């Protein structure tokens, strides 16, 4: 008799709450801000400000190397970062040398900065390929590829992505390796990848480093910040912060808006779990 009563009490019911109600609640509350946007403000954090300042404080004509690791799978999380960063760079007089360290990188890059079609179209900023930026293609094998590039870019890439010999590209005339680069922007999707850049760029070449990455990778990048890492963006939220800081509105604002209500069922679910646990332990 006592065992049956124990199973039916409120604490047990709370502990056995059907998770599918939480799923349904999250999905419904995702659509609400889509239809009726909330428009809440976003506050900008210090790492975002440092990231932005690292870009805009560079003297005109400085060379920025971009190790691009964007893929379509997680593009929703980083699209805002990419668009805002490229727009910021195109608004300055920086020169960019871009290479990819993931196989989806070239396609994502074309999607973001394709001439005439990209979401951050360089033509709209008057940027000329070969004079303001160069795309070098895919450098496989991660850290080993990075090492090859820091030593001698031409050992890895004798041509750019489109097959033009590097020696025929005006911008690449005096760019041979890490010594000719002023800032490295590294983008990656696997949390331990930051170690590649610390080992191959920061330690041997004393290279200033900024990164963009997924939201879950910020805790692993934080030990290097500030110091080895000047600034970072992690997740779509910080992408939204950069949109605000740089004055380049993009997809991040809407994504942040929709998140506001969708998380509430989960938090309620978490609270119920803890109330159930507390009740079973202390209230019986």
């Amino acid at each position, binding site marked *: 008799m006592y065992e049956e009563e124990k199973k039916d009490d409120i604490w047990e019911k709370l502990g056995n709450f059907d998770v*599918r109600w939480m*799923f349904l609640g*999250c*999905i419904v509350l*995702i*659509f609400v801000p*889509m239809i009726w946007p909330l428009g809440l403000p976003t506050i900008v954090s210090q790492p975002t400000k440092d990231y932005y300042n690292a870009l805009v404080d560079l003297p005109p004509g400085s060379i920025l190397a971009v190790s691009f690791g964007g893929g379509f799978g*997680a593009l*929703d*999380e980083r699209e805002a970062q990419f668009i805002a960063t490229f727009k910021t760079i195109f608004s300055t007089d920086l020169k960019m040398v871009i290479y990819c360290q993931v*196989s*989806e990188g*070239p*396609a994502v890059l074309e999607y973001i900065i394709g001439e005439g079609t990209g979401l951050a179209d360089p033509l709209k900023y008057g940027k000329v390929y070969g004079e303001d930026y160069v795309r070098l*293609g*895919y*450098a*496989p*094998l991660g*850290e*080993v590829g990075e*090492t090859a590039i820091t030593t001698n870019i031409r050992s*890895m*890439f*004798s*041509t750019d992505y489109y*097959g033009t010999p590097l020696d025929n590209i005006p911008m690449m005339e005096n760019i041979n390796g890490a010594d000719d680069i002023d800032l490295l922007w590294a983008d990656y999707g696997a*949390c331990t990848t930051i*170690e590649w850049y*610390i*080992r*191959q760029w*920061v*330690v*041997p070449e004393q290279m200033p480093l900024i990164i963009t990455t*997924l*939201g*879950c*990778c*910020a*805790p*692993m990048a934080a*030990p290097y910040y500030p*110091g*080895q890492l000047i600034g970072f963006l*992690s*997740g*779509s*939220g910080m992408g939204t912060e950069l949109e605000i800081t740089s004055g380049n509105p993009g997809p991040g604002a*809407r*994504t942040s808006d*929709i*998140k506001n209500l*969708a*998380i509430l069922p*989960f938090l309620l679910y978490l609270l119920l779990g803890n109330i159930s646990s507390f009740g079973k332990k202390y209230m019986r």
Partner: protein
Amino acid sequence: MIIWDVIAAFAGSFLTLSVLSMLWKDNPCFKFGQQGIIGIVIANSVLVNMKSLLDTGIRPLVAGRITLIVPLVFGVLLYTRLSKEYAWLSKYPTSMMVGVGTGVMIMGTLRGQVIDQVKKTILDVFTATDAMGTFNGILILIGTVSSIAFWIFTKEHTGGLGIVSKIGRVYLMISLGANWAGEHVWYLTQVLARLAFVYDNLIMKVLLGQG
């Protein structure tokens, strides 16, 4: 609206909802969406690596960089692992890859991930400009020392080491919690972005003819 936009809206929405159907239960629709990813990833990898091989290996070789014959031959040797009799030949390219990868990894590890980290941990305490900075520096120092103690497995965690490693565990749990939270919000972003695709493209553009 052109036909490809309509096809994109329907196909993309179908794939999104088919993967989402996993919430109900594992079903063929979900598997269809999931299995397709394997094929796509392999195809993309093959395409991009083919181009990379042409640009980095074959074209420079044809242009006169003779030394590139070595990696091309070694690369072909990798395929000998498919033969039981000659599989030992694939150890040569593997050993080069492992050797270079290990050398490259060791190069910056000691300075970048050990010495510089220890230096920063100590200097943060003494170079802080205000009381809060010093307090934070002390907390980081305690956390670093205690979490290192947690990873000592050659001595039982009792007595002083036990107390220190327990403090380290608390710090590591906070770190894990932050990592978990970052992942959770990332996955939430993915859900809402994909559902936004369904809403914007299928519902609003195709079905309601707006936008």
